[in-house]
């Protein structure tokens, strides 16, 4: 398994960088080694590796020679994260299959896939730093792929914020090394408070948690829909995963992570409820769902998988709707075959039984601490309320003969994502107890009711000042102060 791990982690970079050396599409060999074939093959290899990891009895650890703490660690939480990455990447490649994207696009997809995988198995600060920076660069290139000035600005904004965050991270890393002469995550135990605060502020910003994640709505809603699916489905999780792993490895840090999780879950929901743009609603809901992942680090794996698949399906579908404005969509009915995946994805994230979202949410709520339960149940009602915006959109069946063949890529991608949601659900049948089913149905019912009675009738516009570039950087410094106070008063 050690050899397989090394081969698997190196493969995407090897393939990604050598795509340009291969012959073009006009040759037979070039048609076989086409960018999209290679990207799909790599996603399949990752799926196989993740499934293999599930059967691994003990966590697999690879240490770099000598003792600087540089470690790769593959265990069952990483397996869930890697599987999410593999399935979402495969779906995005299938979606782009007929669209004639250049091999540059697939190169970036492959490199992004590889670096996200690397972030999911590293257990030390330096490998994580390198992985996160490669993710920033490839995500920048993917967002800027349409080559318009607007997409370029959105991408630059993202790169700027994430690079500033990573500079803070490096500072924290230097401090940890000075104290313990190691880069391992376990070195955070007993590290200076300011080092922990610096590292956390960077990871919170990269992972899009709470106020530091406010760069996320604009970035995720303005990118092309396959790129949004990748960003929301897996890329932000590369920032969240190290926080989860730190909380599991270093017990003192768990309360800090949990508090941020719960506040982010509530904050994101409130933000999403007042939005009227379909893609922005989805992006703000990502803010809230990432909070869920952090709120209960023990149950993060399955939740990430369920959310990643559901959110990717939603982004891909919304990209094909006639309009992004929910008010307009409410007036003109869409085609039923587009509404079906929209509804299934929404219901899965709301946690309806028969879909993987239900198992994930039930298992997560079961392991939540008593003080978290109330807040998380409130957030669950909020989630159902905001997805009711999609579920109750009008639709009519179209009789056009080409309604299935016109968007072949979309249907292939959706079949993969939604099928995976169904199949996963079968693996966790122990979540189905009478009380949990009744409870989730009540939560969802309450959410739908609130939507019908309240949300649909009032329009509230939140100021978007907080999302301005300068305020984002300023918010980062405020978060730094808050985090320093938290670590100083809680860990002392």
């Amino acid at each position, binding site marked *: 398994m050690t050899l397989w791990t090394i081969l698997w982690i190196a493969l995407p970079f090897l393939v990604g960088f050598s795509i340009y050396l291969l012959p073009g599409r006009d040759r037979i060999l070039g048609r076989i080694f086409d960018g999209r074939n290679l990207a799909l093959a790599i996603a399949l290899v990752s799926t196989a590796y993740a499934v293999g990891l599930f059967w691994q009895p003990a966590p697999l650890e690879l240490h770099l020679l000598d003792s*600087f703490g540089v470690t790769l660690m593959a265990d069952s939480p990483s397996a869930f994260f890697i599987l999410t990455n593999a399935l979402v990447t495969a779906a995005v490649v299938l979606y782009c299959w007929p669209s004639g994207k250049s091999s540059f696009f697939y190169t970036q997809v492959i490199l992004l896939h590889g670096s996200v995988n690397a972030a999911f198995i590293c257990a030390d600060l*330096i490998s994580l*730093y*390198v992985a996160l*920076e490669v993710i*920033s*660069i490839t995500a*920048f290139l993917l967002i*800027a792929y349409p080559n318009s*000035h*607007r997409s*370029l*600005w*959105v*991408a*630059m904004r993202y*790169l*700027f914020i994430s*690079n*500033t965050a990573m*500079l803070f991270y*490096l*500072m924290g*890393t*230097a401090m940890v*090394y*000075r104290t313990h*002469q190691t*880069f391992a995550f376990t070195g955070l135990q007993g590290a200076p408070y300011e080092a922990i605060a610096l590292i956390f502020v960077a990871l919170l910003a990269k992972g899009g948690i709470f106020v530091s994640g406010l760069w996320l709505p*604009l970035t995720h*809603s*303005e990118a092309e829909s396959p790129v949004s699916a990748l960003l929301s489905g897996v890329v932000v999780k590369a920032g969240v995963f190290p926080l989860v792993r730190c909380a599991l490895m270093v017990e003192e840090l768990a309360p800090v992570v949990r508090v941020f999780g719960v506040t982010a879950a509530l904050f994101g929901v409130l933000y999403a409820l007042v939005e009227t*743009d379909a893609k922005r609603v989805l992006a703000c809901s990502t803010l809230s769902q990432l909070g869920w992942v952090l709120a209960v680090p023990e149950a993060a794996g399955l939740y990430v998988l369920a959310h990643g698949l559901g959110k990717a399906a939603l982004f891909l579908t919304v990209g094909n709707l006639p309009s992004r404005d929910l008010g307009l969509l409410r007036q003109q009915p869409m085609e039923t075959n587009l509404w079906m995946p929209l509804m299934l994805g929404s219901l899965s994230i709301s946690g309806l039984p028969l879909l993987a979202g239900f198992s994930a949410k039930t298992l997560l709520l079961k392991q939540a601490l008593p003080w978290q339960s109330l807040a998380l149940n409130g957030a669950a009602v909020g989630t159902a309320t905001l997805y009711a915006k999609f579920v109750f959109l009008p639709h009519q069946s179209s009789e056009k003969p080409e309604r299935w063949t016109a968007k072949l890529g979309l249907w292939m991608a959706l079949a993969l994502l939604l099928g995976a949601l169904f199949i996963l659900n079968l693996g966790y049948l122990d979540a189905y107890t009478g009380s949990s089913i009744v409870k989730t149905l009540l939560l969802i019912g309450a959410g739908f009711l609130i939507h019908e009675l309240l949300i649909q009738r009032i329009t509230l516009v939140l100021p*978007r000042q907080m999302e*301005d*570039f*300068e305020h984002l*950087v*300023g918010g980062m*410094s405020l978060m730094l102060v808050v985090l320093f106070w938290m670590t100083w008063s809680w860990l002392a």
Partner: protein
Amino acid sequence: MLYACVYATILLGFFGILLKENLVMKIIAMDVMSTGVIALFVLVAAGGGRFTPIFIDGPQRDYADPVPQAVILTAIVIGFSIQALMLVGVMKLARDNPTLETRAIEEEYRP
């Protein structure tokens, strides 16, 4: 004392990112900040001594820790490539927004 200087550099860079209006100035401020971070790593490495860690016959001298230096070498390369990428982006943006004021750009491209 040296640590204070390094932290001051980082802080100044950060304030530059925060307070400068012009996008190019922001990028330069970020470069200042990353210079500070690099200096911090070099300083941490020099904690135990300053000699190059080369194996020699005779008594070993106090040598600098090579690990942080190796690490920061990676970080320098990454930081440099990101800066280059951003400057290319700025060159493209400058065609539409010759002043490169962040606030004006933000206004223009807001949905």
